[in-house]
């Protein structure tokens, strides 16, 4: 590679360079707003999300209530803003669990011998097929009706995908360096591996994290929609959606608001994942999201399936 090519390539791998894609810029913008709301949402809400106002039921959008009011006269916008925190934080919780459980295990499995690797792979296969929602609900039976508990199984069932990604990256390195995986001697080698493997794994991990977060967010919305972890009157995105459904006759357009919010956030995460993926090039291992559906591509088709305009 010529020197100019090398410099160009390094330029591409700097994190800031994702922002070159317009879709990625929008996505990052949206996510920044969401995270901001998650942290400061309740403080910034124009109205108190809990105030019941019996005179103003089912109002349409107005100056006072930018997104209208719900079946108890509460300001929808404020409720959505306040509900962001719970949704976002518990989504992160699940992703963190998946990451911590799956990631290091994926690296370790390359060095722990064939049988361990085989067993780990089979377990990962099985875990990936299991529907996490069912387990999330079941866990609430065991551990109480809390969202935090419910996201445990979601996180656990996310870990196989992290496992796969880190394992693939580690394998690539181990093979490339002809390192006999079992004969790992000396801290210096460990350090080198840590540095190289981490560098190789980061782009794929970025894609996966974005997708996993999207999936976890959907899972949270779904669970709160089902009534898990919701302590009324505390607002959650899914909870708002669910109650809107009950009053569909009176206000058929109401569910679109939280629905749109969920969709936009999830879409932004997916766009971010796509932006990461574009820069990691073909052959990237992208695995199916095991939670409620978001975006699924298979490693079998390495070619990017977005065709340039003919």
């Amino acid at each position, binding site marked *: 590679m010529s020197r100019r090519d090398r410099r160009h390539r390094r330029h591409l791998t700097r994190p800031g360079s994702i922002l070159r894609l317009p879709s990625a810029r929008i996505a990052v913008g949206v996510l920044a707003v969401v995270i901001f709301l998650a942290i400061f949402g309740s403080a910034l809400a124009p109205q108190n999300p809990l105030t019941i106002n019996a005179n103003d039921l089912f109002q349409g959008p107005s100056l006072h209530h930018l997104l209208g009011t719900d079946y108890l006269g509460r300001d929808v916008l404020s409720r959505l803003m306040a509900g962001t925190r719970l949704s976002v934080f518990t989504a992160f919780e699940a992703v963190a669990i998946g990451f911590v459980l799956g990631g290091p295990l994926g690296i370790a499995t390359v060095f722990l011998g064939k049988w361990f690797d085989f067993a780990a792979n089979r377990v990962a296969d099985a875990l990936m097929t299991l529907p996490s929602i069912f387990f999330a609900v079941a866990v609430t*039976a065991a551990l109480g009706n809390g969202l935090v508990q419910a996201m445990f199984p979601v996180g656990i069932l996310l870990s196989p995908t992290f496992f796969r990604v880190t394992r693939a990256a580690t394998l690539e390195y181990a093979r490339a360096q002809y390192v006999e995986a079992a004969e790992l001697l000396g801290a210096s080698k460990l350090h080198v591996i840590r540095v190289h493997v981490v560098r190789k794994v980061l782009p794929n991990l970025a894609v996966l994290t974005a997708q996993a977060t999207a999936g976890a967010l959907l899972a949270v919305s779904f669970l709160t929609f089902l009534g898990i972890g919701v302590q009324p009157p505390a607002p959650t995105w899914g909870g708002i959606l669910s109650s809107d459904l009950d009053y*569909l006759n009176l206000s058929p357009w109401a569910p679109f608001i939280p*629905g749109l919010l969920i969709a936009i956030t999830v879409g932004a995460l997916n766009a971010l994942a796509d932006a990461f993926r574009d820069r990691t090039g073909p052959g990237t291992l992208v695995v199916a999201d095991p939670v409620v559906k978001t975006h699924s591509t298979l490693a079998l088709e390495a070619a990017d399936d977005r065709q340039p305009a003919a």
Partner: protein
Amino acid sequence: MAVVAEWRSAAGDDNVIAPRRRRVRSVASRIGGGLAILIPILVLSSFIVYALGALSNSNPAATILGQDAATPAAVAKMDKALGLDKPLLVQYWDWLTQAAQGHLGTSWFTGIPVSQSIAQRLPVDLSIAVLAVILAILIGGTAGTVAAVRRGGWFDRGVTLVCSAVSTLPAFVVGIILVVAFAVAWHLLPANGYVGPTGGILPWLQHIILPALALSLQVAADIARQLRTSLVSVLEQNYIVGARVRGLPYRRILVRHALRNASGPALTILGNDFPLMLAGAVAAEAVFSLPGLGQLLLESAQTRDIPVVQGVLLVVSTFVIVVNLLVNTVLNVLYRSGDGVAA
């Protein structure tokens, strides 16, 4: 037809075993491998399922007996009746062996055998899931095929756009949209409830079509996208040209050669998405008020009716794992060239 003189060929005589038998053996070994994994996986997941229940610290005896009657002696007696006094592993083993015979225990609160409750509710989910799969294959398959055949055309671009949009919408949001559109706004189809096929085929279909559609759209989008990519790649292959110069009609080439070889990844997606469809079925049940397994699970989770929870989980996990095995087997049969998907 004159017989050309016999010449020895360079290779090919080395295969002494008849080719068909050899391939069957390889497929069989793969199925066998799948089964061998299946058992430990099932055991593992059932154990997790069971352990969840055991973790619950709930005291069903007390709840059943009620506050006043829950004296320690009565509780101990009830515990014994419920089988809760034995060590965990023994309980697990009893439960598992019973489950293998179809007895999943009895609800702590209603006294109804779990298998009965499940059997009652299963057809609801099954009919929706099966219809959803059919719809997904029809919609996704057609869209993906047409998009690939008319590559670059307006249909192709439209499909790509729609697929991206649908991908972000979770099944329950789609379901809600459908309800709003078809049931509330246009009053075409019922918004909720379920009528079994025994109550008439048409009402049954009317009730399940919306939830099935809601469930199928995401999977259909994924199938369409994947099928399009695979098909475009397959159609560029030499053997399609080979089939053309043999004079085979285009439609036949498309279906029996191209689609057949290209559908592998799409089918895998279907197999992978199936557990997600189950989750979506729970969503659909919530949106459309259907009396299915999801609702059963929710209710029993709320009341902490552990045997029911365990039973439902076991049934669902087994189902999912078995379906995955089936999908893998089908793929093995369709793609005999030994290296998986031929594209």
